[in-house]
């Protein structure tokens, strides 16, 4: 027997997903232990071993790669360190005259009339930022030679300050890395062993602020991530694990521990990045669909990502804790909307949800832990969607009276409406916020969300996503049986992936065939080395090549997928140019087919495809045992509070079809089957909600 498993350490819970050789999947959850992540890690593994009635050592042995098992792991350790400012003390060596690139950022403030904000501190303090005399120009020519003494002097000072890592970022190092490389050489000689990062290797992109920021973050994570990985590997060996550890990355794949320690910035936000991988796998297995929107609604935040033709959208425009990451990362957009989001009414009578959250303490009013502000969870209680006696499978008792009081006092009274109407307005308003986020990452990129399947994860998703999908005009929502641990599930079956890119400017009018060939060859060589290192068999290797292109004078590029792996002749170039015009038109509604196209970056994505796992499909044998009782729940279309059948999810079997209105209760999630929709249990045990013919028409305006 061998097991595949993946542990995802999130902010509140540590999720473990275990799949046995037959593809049966189990989920284990325990609270995350801040400060000592490995404890929660070991604790959860022990729970799983207990479940399979195996001694820990034996269980770990069967998970080991050399036994045919697999061990994936993602952790919020680096994300939290950035947000809480607990990264290593790091210095920045930069081009002289440009010490303020991290201070000034790119400017751009949100609300022009809001001056009640503290200006953010730079990621690396100014006193730890050192200008080095040198300058390279846009063509890679040397304007000012490197002053090596500046470097040595800075290092002497940094030793005194006892910094733990050094970021090296120079202007135009992407056009000519010679000075960064020389500085690396000097560091190795003067201070052997101090971790450092070079900007042209961490993130070879134009736009100094983004590259400098990536490099600063990467260097600051090096001590932390390498310690974490070393500690983890030691503990794992102690409990009987043999072989390689696969670590989750922010681009939605896995790499070896050794690779991640080299570029720890790719460990940031790896959890949310794996939810779309999970959504893709589940949707492809269960429904053979590959245009997917994945969502994850928890207690405090709502994350959404998009997959088109099986390809997960990535973006370089991402921040963590207000700091620019700048690397290619799964394009997962997050807003502060969750069960704990607080509802309030302003002086003009407009209802708002959040951004404040009641969090876990004091939590929603109904938690009876001292919270008096009405939250989304309180609204769900008042509407009858949640059973106060069956929250978290009954582990936690909620007080409906407190929920009613909070909503009555803070929302219903100021708006002069009934408490049910107020609760419904809260529920609808949070849905509107979430559907707007989905529109931002689909419609803005030329994607029609109506043609996409929504895969809904997270504990709070089942009560909201069907209504949101309907609002967007969608027809199907899939709520996986592993909805509560989507990221860990994604990590258990992730492909091995890594991106390799470089900046190489050319344009369609005078295309540099030789230069681009050389550039792509070097990227492919890096990809091959990566495959070799990760021991990906030849037949599972896949390369995708992207050109990041724009019109003259534009500065934001669109990634165009090459049909092959290179551009060798006019015909292939024409094809690429035509694909760019088409993409530009699709995304922005305009194109300029008679204008030349500029190519700025080249990117090779190396994918080691995991052979598709064989999940067991059950025969459809509907069960009749699942019906619990009825409860009053609010449906606007049906005139208010109506008797609604309640079903126990664990007793439903493939083939069961639930007609609306209904509520299905699972231990970690509750699903609202809205009028005009029906739910069925798929062969793989997931819930498929199909939305009726009236999809797209709003219910809100009906009388």
């Amino acid at each position: 027997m061998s097991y595949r498993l993946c542990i995802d350490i999130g902010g509140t819970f540590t999720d473990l997903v275990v799949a046995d050789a037959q593809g049966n999947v189990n989920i284990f959850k325990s609270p995350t232990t801040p400060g000592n992540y490995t404890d929660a890690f070991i604790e959860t593994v022990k729970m799983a071993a207990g479940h399979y009635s195996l001694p820990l050592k034996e269980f770990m042995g069967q998970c080991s790669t050399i036994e045919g098992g697999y061990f994936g792991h993602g952790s919020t350790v680096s994300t939290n360190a950035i947000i809480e400012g607990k990264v290593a003390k790091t210095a920045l060596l930069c081009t002289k005259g440009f010490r303020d690139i991290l201070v000034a950022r790119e400017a751009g403030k949100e609300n022009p009339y809001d001056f009640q904000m503290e200006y953010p501190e730079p990621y690396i303090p100014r006193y730890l930022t050192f200008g080095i005399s040198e300058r390279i120009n846009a063509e890679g020519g040397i304007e000012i030679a490197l002053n090596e003494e500046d470097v040595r002097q800075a290092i002497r000072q940094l030793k005194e300050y006892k910094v733990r890592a050094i970021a090296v970022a120079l202007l135009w190092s992407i056009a000519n890395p010679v000075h960064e490389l020389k500085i690396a050489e000097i560091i190795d000689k003067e201070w052997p062993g101090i971790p450092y990062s070079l900007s042209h290797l961490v993130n070879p992109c134009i736009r100094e602020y983004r590259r400098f920021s990536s490099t600063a973050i990467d260097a600051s994570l090096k001590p932390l991530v390498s310690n974490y990985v070393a500690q983890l590997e030691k503990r794992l060996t102690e409990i009987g694990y043999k072989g390689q550890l696969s670590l989750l990355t922010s681009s939605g794949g896995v790499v070896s521990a050794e690779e991640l320690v080299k570029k720890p910035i790719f460990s940031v936000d790896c959890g949310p990045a794996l939810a779309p991988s999970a959504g893709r796998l589940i949707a492809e297995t269960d429904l053979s669909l590959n245009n997917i929107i994945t969502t994850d609604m928890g207690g405090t935040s709502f994350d959404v990502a998009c997959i088109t033709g099986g390809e997960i959208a990535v973006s370089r425009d991402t921040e963590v804790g207000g700091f620019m990451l700048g690397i290619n990362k799964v394009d997962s957009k997050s807003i502060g909307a969750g069960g704990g989001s607080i509802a309030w009414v302003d002086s003009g009578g407009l209802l708002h949800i959040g951004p404040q959250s009641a969090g876990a303490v004091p939590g929603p009013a109904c938690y009876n832990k001292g919270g008096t502000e009405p939250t989304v969870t309180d609204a769900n209680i008042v509407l009858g969607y949640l059973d106060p006696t069956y929250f978290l499978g009954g582990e936690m008792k909620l007080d409906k009276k407190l929920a009613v009081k909070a909503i009555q006092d803070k929302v219903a009274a100021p708006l002069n409406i009934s408490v049910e109407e107020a609760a419904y307005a809260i529920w609808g308003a949070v849905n509107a916020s979430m559907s707007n986020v989905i529109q931002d990452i689909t419609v803005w990129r030329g994607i029609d969300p109506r043609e996409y399947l929504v895969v809904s994860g997270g504990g709070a998703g089942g009560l909201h996503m069907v209504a949101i999908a309907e609002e967007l005009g969608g027809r199907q929502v899939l709520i996986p049986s592993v909805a509560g641990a989507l990221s860990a599930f994604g990590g258990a079956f992730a492909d091995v992936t890594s991106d390799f890119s470089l900046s190489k400017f050319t344009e369609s009018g005078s295309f540099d065939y030789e230069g681009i060939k050389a550039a792509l060859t070097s990227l492919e060589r890096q990809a091959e080395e990566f495959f070799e290192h990760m021991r990906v068999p030849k037949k599972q290797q896949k390369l995708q090549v992207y050109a990041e292109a724009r019109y003259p004078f534009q500065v934001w590029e669109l990634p165009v997928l090459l049909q092959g792996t290179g551009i060798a002749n006019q015909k292939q170039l024409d094809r690429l140019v035509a694909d760019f015009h088409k993409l530009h038109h699709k995304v922005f509604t305009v194109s300029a087919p008679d204008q030349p196209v500029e190519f700025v970056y080249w990117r090779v994505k190396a994918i080691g495809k995991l052979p598709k796992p064989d999940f067991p499909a059950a025969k459809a044998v509907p069960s009749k045992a699942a019906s619990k009782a009825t409860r009053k729940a609010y449906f606007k279309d049906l005139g208010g509070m109506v008797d609604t059948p309640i079903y126990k999810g664990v007793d439903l079997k493939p083939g069961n079809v639930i007609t609306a209105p209904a509520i299905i209760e699972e231990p970690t999630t509750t699903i609202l089957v809205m009028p005009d929709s029906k739910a069925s249990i798929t062969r793989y045990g997931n819930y498929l909600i199909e939305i009726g013919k009236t999809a797209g028409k709003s219910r809100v305006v009906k009388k």
Partner: protein
Amino acid sequence: MAEKKKKDIRIDPLLMVVLSKRLDAISREMANTLTRTGRSGNINTAKDFSCGITDAQARMVCVDEGLPIHIVGAGLAAKSVTDLFDDIQPGDCFLNNSPYYGNSHHADFTFMVPVFYKGKHVFTTITRAHQGDIGNHDPTTYMPFASDVYTEGGLDFPCVRIQRDYKDLADIVRMAKVRIRAPEQWYGDYLAAIGSVRTGEKRIVEMCDKYGLDTVMAFTERWQEYGRTRMIEAIRLLPAGTWENETRHDPLPFVAPDGVPIRVKLTINPMEGYITLDFTDNIDCIPFGLNMSEATVMASAVSGVLNNLDPTLPHNWGAFSRIIIKVREGSVVGQARHPLSASMATTNLADRVINVVQACFGKVSKELGLAEGAYMPAAAGSVFGIDWRKNNALYVRQLMMGGAGGPGHHGYDGWLGYGIPVTAGVVHMDSIEIDEQAMPLLVDKHEVIPDSGGAGQWRGAIGMECHQRPRHDAGSWGFIADGHFNPPQGINGGLPGSALQLYKYTLDKGEETKTELPTVSLETLQPGEAMISMSSGGGGFGNPLDRDPEKVRHDVREGYVTLEKARDIYGVVINTDTELYSVNNEATKALRAGMKKNAEATK
């Protein structure tokens, strides 16, 4: 009858939220389209544009978080469409850049699409963006020395139709292409703007399909009422009274050797929920490009008020209608009369207007008011020349560097990289690498200037120093800076920010041989010559002797304030023997007590 029917439609609280979020999302999508597809740096990097939606009566319904100078007055441009045309139809798009017809100034091209639903004009989508070039006599979008529209030399589009039936009117586009430098860049920006207004149109139609026109129109009325209520509530929190304030723009060669004074009389009427700004006591228009247009007076005056109020107030006509602006015809702070030039109506005097209004609130209460924010830095000038790397292709752009300092105000230090009052930090700074790739220029330095922020209990933000020079061929640099003679003032005991400086020097002779340049000029820099721009810091708020000593320590350690100024101005004694420095509390206490006593004595 129809009016009554509209009011009968109940807009429940949920629908209010849903539709307001929907409209907000539409204006944000319009802005996203423009940023991602625009060609000139003003649009794609600096984001010097705004997008919004008005109703058919040209009342602002919503705007994205655009530039303050664009936002409030945008309705005036929309009004020009319905005032001037009686044959508007679906598929039309209008272009207005005329300060005489409701636009801000010539460099802002405002594109407007009347949105029709079932044959009726219901909304207008608006995208206003600062262009890279507009065909002025000089290769810059700012013509300070122009006395009138003829000497500006650029194209005036007094609200003209530029698309019909969703197709370009080719003659108008051809006119623009012939008269605008780098026409392909301009046409790219044009396409981006069309994409933006058309996206807004499409989404509004979808919204009307989904919710029904009557519901959407009823919502719009409720939304304006909501804005009005919020603004009245905000004004009710203020004390009643009338206050006056004055600031002064730097001298202008020939036309205003003593500078241009800008005066305001502020009246707050909390009982009825109105604020009145009276600008009638200002000098007549000058034969110079700085006269303000009606749109920019409105926008900058209202900004000065909004900067003092709850930042979550909605930005719609209902809210703005509670601020009454009085101007005198023919005044610099009035409405530039054709043919007098308003080439620079969006910056210099507009910056002074925002400052004079926001700082006036400091007289209302010790906890209100913002100091003056910094003025136009020289590093944000227009550059022009040829690029030997691209077969001597022309380049013409406005650079966005040298971010000047924001004002201190109660509870908060100024915002670094604020730029100028009319942009309020919203405009993005250029990437040096992007600029050096696009143009043959080199930036030698871009760093903050210690001690430049006006001292105060809450410090004005520091200014930045920027060195720029052309490569290979000569280039022309246009400056229209302010704040050299009249730097940003502090309020309620805060000190002024540093004075703006502008220099030129020759590389092989060294920076120490630098000479001053006039701050309003058009200079040719030869290869081997460089300019140095030192922008102002913002004014400070409150007495520097009341500043938290820990903040002073942090400022000193980070190099924002020198040890000497910490002691002499803030009365804080810093020990430098530890890595993070420390405050010598006893010495500080004694020093501050002495300084306060001295100040009392000299009063």
